[in-house]
């Protein structure tokens, strides 16, 4: 484990919203190919932490290094770094004025990573992977929630990211659609993608995560394998939380 490369390095990260301190002091390394699931009660700072990793939220203090780029440094070209960090949102955030395929092609073509033809081929290949190649020309409004989220995952993958961030990807879904999205994520994990996932799906966490990070009040309370954190939690706050959700 030790010689694996830390793809994300976070040191003493703090984030305030005005007077509200959301992240108080977070330090963590995330390694290549690792699947990390962030658990914790609402308001514990999980989503904020995730959004700091691609600077959708600017850190108040501390250092974040992604792929050897210090993204908390103002001189770093954050757009370049973001090309390698895919993000999937709770509310999908597909572009409603573009078709499914256009949603996926937009970034690779605009950022000159691929020609239109290449992006199209890549888009179709990704859609096949998430089981939606038949919907390439549909508009997002014509899709179910689960389908939208699978398209959103394909869109993020189109840039060939090194890391994927998932911000409660199944929380806005009807229960019967949760499975199809989790399955796509499981396959992605099996393919070796580095993933950081904020979720309330304990079953998914137990099955897929290499490491569980339990957060509360802006701190990491406890972390370890699913066996350690979910089955044998040590901290009182973790035990309390798990008792409520399990």
């Amino acid at each position: 484990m030790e010689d694996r490369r830390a793809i994300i390095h976070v040191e003493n990260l703090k984030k305030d919203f005005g007077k509200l301190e959301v992240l108080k002091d977070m330090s963590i390394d995330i390694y290549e190919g690792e699947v990390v699931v962030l658990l914790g009660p609402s308001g514990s700072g999980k989503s904020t932490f995730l959004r700091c990793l691609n600077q959708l939220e600017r850190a108040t203090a501390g250092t974040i290094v992604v792929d050897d780029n210090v993204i908390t440094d103002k001189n770093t070209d954050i757009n370049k770094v973001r090309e390698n960090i895919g993000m999937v949102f709770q509310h999908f955030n597909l572009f409603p004025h573009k078709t499914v395929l256009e949603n996926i092609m937009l970034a690779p073509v605009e950022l000159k990573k691929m020609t239109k033809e290449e992006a199209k081929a890549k888009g179709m290949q990704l859609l096949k992977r998430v089981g939606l190649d038949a919907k390439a020309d549909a508009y997002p409004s014509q899709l179910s929630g689960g389908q939208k989220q699978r398209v959103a995952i394909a869109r993020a993958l189109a840039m060939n990211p090194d890391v994927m961030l998932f911000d409660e990807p199944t929380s806005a879904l009807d229960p019967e659609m949760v499975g199809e999205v989790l399955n796509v994520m499981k396959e992605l994990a099996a393919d070796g993608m580095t993933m950081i996932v904020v979720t309330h799906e304990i079953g998914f966490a137990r099955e897929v995560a290499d490491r569980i990070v339990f957060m509360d009040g802006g701190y990491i309370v406890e972390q370890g394998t699913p066996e350690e954190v979910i089955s044998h939690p040590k901290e009182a706050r973790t035990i309390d939380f798990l008792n409520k959700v399990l």
Partner: protein
Amino acid sequence: MSSIMQIIETYAGMLMGALGKTLLLTLLSLVFAMVIGMIFALMNVGKNRVFNFIGTVYVDAVRGVPLIVLAYFIYFGVPAGMKAIFPEFRLSALQAGTIALAMNCGAYMAEIIRAGIESVDKGQMEASRSLGLTYGKSMRLVVLPQAIRTMIPSIINQFIITLKDTSILSVIGFPELTNMGKTISGNTFKSLETWAIVGVMYMVVIVTLSKIAKRIERRVNRGR
């Protein structure tokens, strides 16, 4: 009735010419107003405090001044103020009128565009930025195309207001439709007939334009 026909027969050419001037003034003003509106709207929605301030001051200042005062200020005031440096400087009624209308309409347009941009869910900008697109590209490719749909009814409404506002510029002597009405009613002493004709002419143009606009609106909304 016969006097209406008489006026139309005698002044048809001049009335149509004046209507053309009205439309020209409207069109020119709208083009500049769109540009002005877009610039100040983008200043207002961004995070730069200095731009926010400039944008707010512009919108408040222009909306706080009656159009007729703005027109007088630009047509008479500005050349008078520049006399010391550029004694030859003059603005034609068309130039001054276009500037005044464009400034006025631009301020309202800025508010319409700002509201349109803010009506687009914040997640759209975030999703686009998370893919590595710049703020400018995200605005142009993701946010604005969606904003425009919600803006269209208000923009059409503003276009119609601007068309009607051209009549105010009769006060600086631009020979648009209302000014022509003044001339004709002065010549013929037939106020009722003259102003009825002028009123109907405005109405026909505006109703036609709003019908066309409705059609555009429907087309844009298709496939949403």
